[in-house]
């Protein structure tokens, strides 16, 4: 479930950065169209792939429920962090991406 959470959080952060407004707020620049496209693709891919660790660990029924729960929680966490601790929100996503291979390895 941890791996799914990390991936979902990073995925939502990518999707968030793919919007002009939030990219401007967080990184103080306007994303190029290619960058926006890449972020959007990466974000959706992360969210979708996050199904896999949840389902492989706990089966389809419980796995899908966990994936949904993690999806909602990570989005909620990101949105609540953004206005108060924008740096932390980004750092968490980065750390999450870095840690997820370790978490994946531990789950194997």
């Amino acid at each position, binding site marked *: 479930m941890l791996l799914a959470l990390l991936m979902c959080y990073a995925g939502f952060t990518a999707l968030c950065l793919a919007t002009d407004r939030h990219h401007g707020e967080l990184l103080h620049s306007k994303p190029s169209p290619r960058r926006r496209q890449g972020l959007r693709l990466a974000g959706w891919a992360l969210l979708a792939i996050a199904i896999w660790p949840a389902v492989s660990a706990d089966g389809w029924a419980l796995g899908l429920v966990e994936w949904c729960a993690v999806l909602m929680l990570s989005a909620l966490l990101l949105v609540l962090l*953004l206005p108060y601790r924008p740096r932390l929100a980004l750092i968490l996503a980065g750390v999450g991406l870095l840690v997820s291979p370790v978490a994946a390895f531990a789950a194997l």
Partner: protein
Amino acid sequence: MKEGFRQAMAWLHTWAGLVFGWLLFAIFLTGTLSYFKDEISHWMQPEVQAHAVDDARSLGVAQNYLQHVAPDAARWIITLPNSRDPGLLVMWQDKLDPGKRGNFNQKTLDPTNAQAVEARDSMGGEFFYRFHFQLQMPHPWGRWLSTFAAMVMFLALITGIITHKKIFKDFFTFRPRKGQRSWLDGHNAVGVLVLPFHLMITYSSLVIFMTMVMPAPILASYGGDARAFFNEVFPASNNAPAQGVPGKLLPLPALYEQARAQWAGGHVGRIAVNNPSDVNASVNMFRAGSDKVVHDFGSVVQFNGTTGELLQVSDEQSLPTLVAGGFFGLHMGHFAGPVLRWLYFICGLAGTAMIGTGLVIWLGKRQLKHAKTAVMPFELRLVEVLNIASMSGLLIAIAAFFWANRLLPVSFAERSGWEVQTFFIAWGLSLLHAVLRRGRQAWVEQLGFAALLFMAVPLLNALTTSQHLGVSLVRGDWAMAGFDLTCLASGAFLAWAAWKMQRRTVPQPKAQRPRPLHLKQEAN
């Protein structure tokens, strides 16, 4: 045309949300608490101590006890302890003439020393669970009202999605400290981000009561004989009648192992033994709800109690019961482990917060128009009073319920009834208080009082029982410790909310409205 449609939907969202908001707030908050029903019950009956779960030992103790106390009972029912609910519950039904149903007796046992535990009389978490769909009303009415509220909730969700134009554009937007704007942002954020949960919980609540709400298909197919329908959907296990010849019951732990083997290691939740002293005794092992997401209404393995012969294993679920059981299981979350259970709890709080913020927005918008006049119109004042009483008042009532549990003497007559009375008396008093005080003061005072009550819960627990945080944390009794800690955290959050609102009055003289709680943190 398009705008007209959207406006109509916005109108419906606004008014359906207002009229049912107060009730829905209470339903959501108490329903959210019900995810920790067993943990709350554990806290409210501290006499029942937590032990490491050992089913074989528990079962042996229960069988021994029942054989001593009620060898001639018509039926025994044993509910095994689990990590959430430490009580080993035994019930037995007295034998009476055929056709009459005997009384049920009930005892909680300590699985380590086989003694009956004299636990204080309390409804525990069951009260919140019952209240969230029965609303403390006589039998069918509470269910009907809460189901109707659920329909309105479903309507409000759908009209809300239509009304909210920029779901994807504003997906990540929350702008705090901007008054009315922030409330709307918050309302949208908790609404949209947790929307899958909201839709699931609301729709599944309708599925749970579908036979009550939409009986037409049953009446049409079964010719008005609803009982025939239920008999077919939930077949009672056919228990062999007693022969009148005494028999010796096999040790239950052995049968328990066989039942688990039938479910590939699944867990047994409850065991019913019919005619335990008869040669025709039958043992039914019911599967624990924590095993599967899809709720199985009667997963049972039946044995002959004296020979150990496997009599019956219930069939796989049919597709319709699978779908209904899926919604049922998702709503109740029996399958959720600790982490997922907390996520459920947070989602429930988000739903509660969505309703609360909606109510605040309704009032805030209209109050702006009357900012310059000294007196608020009656209808706005009414909404304000109801907002205060339904939100902060409910929090006080919940805390009062916990306090009553610790302060009412254990020997008090009708004790559990008085706990419930305290809940409603506290709620009523907070309504009175909201009527008497001006809006903002009422918010601050009630939130502050609720904060005080919640923060003092661990202290109260330490003074009145021997299971304070120092003990429960050391022993790893997470249900007990978690309850105390959650109360403490909720109290801190409410204190922050009260402080926020108090402070807000100074720099903002223009009638920017009360700043009440925004994410309802609640006790375990």
